[in-house]
């Protein structure tokens, strides 16, 4: 039962990585940039919920809605102010800017909330699931996280395949110039992508902080890097790839923590990434991305 329990919480951790990885993968696929500040949006979402629920004593659902709204605005604003002016610049310039945005967000949080960890109250208030006569307990946060991830994947896939703006996103990801010739506003499409990615980051923040309730300005940083790893692992630009990459990563991390060493678990995760990329440079589901000018 021990293994099953570690495995299930690994899937749940992986589900959080997958939700964050979606933001990385969509922004990469459509705007062709690595938004290294994406992880810090999670932290901002966490602090919004913390303020509303723990400080102001309002219901968790309200906190989540406020976090989604705040992160969406933050993501779109960042794109408009920091990244859009660099649309024609080298990818290195964009990457450096994104790292700058990441530090900016961390330091603003440091200024407002200080560096002491804050105790985050779980947004999931359901009872835990007890199975096999008490031998296996699955926390309600774990269950809610996995279900949320499944719903998000289905909704996002439907959005992309069934809506006009979703199709525009596909077109922009394939050929920005040709998309513009179809009458698609490329800037608007990229802004929508940032909005969706950031809203998902807020949800990921709520779920992550519920499972690991210590909140600091650096909370988003490591999960951000892991989710980026998951996106690359699954094949950057691919939505099912983000899911597969996230879940595999979460399971490997949790099982390594349980059976090998909690200090080495991160090293093992990144070692697996390197091996996968040596064997399959495009990741598990990745396709060759032809760079277009």
């Amino acid at each position, binding site marked *: 039962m021990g293994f099953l329990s570690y495995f299930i919480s690994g899937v749940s951790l992986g589900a959080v990585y997958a939700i964050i990885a979606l933001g990385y993968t969509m922004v990469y696929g459509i705007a062709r940039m690595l938004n290294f500040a994406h992880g810090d949006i999670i932290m901002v979402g966490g602090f919004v919920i913390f303020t509303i629920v723990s400080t102001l004593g309002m219901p968790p659902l309200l906190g989540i809605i406020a976090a989604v709204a705040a992160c969406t605005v933050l993501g779109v604003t960042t794109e408009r102010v920091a990244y859009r002016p660099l649309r024609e610049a080298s990818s290195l310039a964009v990457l450096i800017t994104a790292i700058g945005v990441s530090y900016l967000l961390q330091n603003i949080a440091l200024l407002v909330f200080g560096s002491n960890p804050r105790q985050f109250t779980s947004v999931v208030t359901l009872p835990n699931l007890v199975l096999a006569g008490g031998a296996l307990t699955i926390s309600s946060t774990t269950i809610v996280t996995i279900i949320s991830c499944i719903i998000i994947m289905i909704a996002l896939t439907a959005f992309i395949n069934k809506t006009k703006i979703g*199709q525009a996103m596909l077109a922009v990801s*394939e050929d920005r*110039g*040709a998309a*513009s*010739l*179809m*009458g698609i*506003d490329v800037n608007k499409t990229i802004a929508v992508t940032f909005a969706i990615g950031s809203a998902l980051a807020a949800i990921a923040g709520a779920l992550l902080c519920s499972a690991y309730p210590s909140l600091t300005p650096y909370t988003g940083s490591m999960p951000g890097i892991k989710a980026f790893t998951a996106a690359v692992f699954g094949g950057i630009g691919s939505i099912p790839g983000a899911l597969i990459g996230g879940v595999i990563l979460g399971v490997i991390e949790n099982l390594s923590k349980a059976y090998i060493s909690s200090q080495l678990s991160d090293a093992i995760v990144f070692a697996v990434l390197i091996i996968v990329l040596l064997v399959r440079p495009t990741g598990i589901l990745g396709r060759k991305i032809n760079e277009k000018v």
Partner: protein
Amino acid sequence: MAILEVKDLEVYYGVIQAIKGISFTVNQGEIIALIGANGAGKTTTLQTITGLIPAKAGKIIYNGTDITRVPGYKLVSMGIAHVPEGRRVFAEMTVLQNLRMGAYTRRDKTEVEETLKSIYQRFPRLEERKNQPAGTLSGGEQQMLAMGRALMSRPKLMLMDEPSMGLSPIYVNEIFDIIKEIHKSGTTVLLVEQNAKKALSIADEAYVLETGKIVLSGDAHEMMDNEQVKKAYLSE
């Protein structure tokens, strides 16, 4: 009446000037051919008209409106469609999805279906392959898809960049027949071609571009008999 006027257009790639002050006019209802050797600046000219590349100087007037600084995506709903060089179909999307992208700016849903039907009539092969990813089509079929996609917006003016490039002779003839049909049904065509003979044979007026400058212009049929043109562009 002029549907498109290009006046003293200059375009740069960084510090390199690709278009050196060209002017030309496209009259409503005509086929205008823009011919010239590889690297003359034909693609650059078309891409500047549809806003993929900014103009450094000069003016582009469409139906009396200055569109020089209008963002490219807005031109589709104004009636301009551009079939780009190299076709640039969305390879991972299906044929049908590609065609629907062509109608992206249209709000008249029932009429879009009519347009789709008429495009399937003109290109039966596209209907047969409508659920296939566009990347799996042959070169000629992709060219038809690129044209069908542009037609989905019901353009008044259609820019075509080397539609016959890399195609087998049978397809080349078919493509030129289709261009004639498109023109007959009322669309003005600005055609860029390296296949000068074919282009001049269907065009009304023609311009010859050489390293960013227009060196010759006039009636397309007279141009076919021009010794200079014969020597440079029609020798086979």
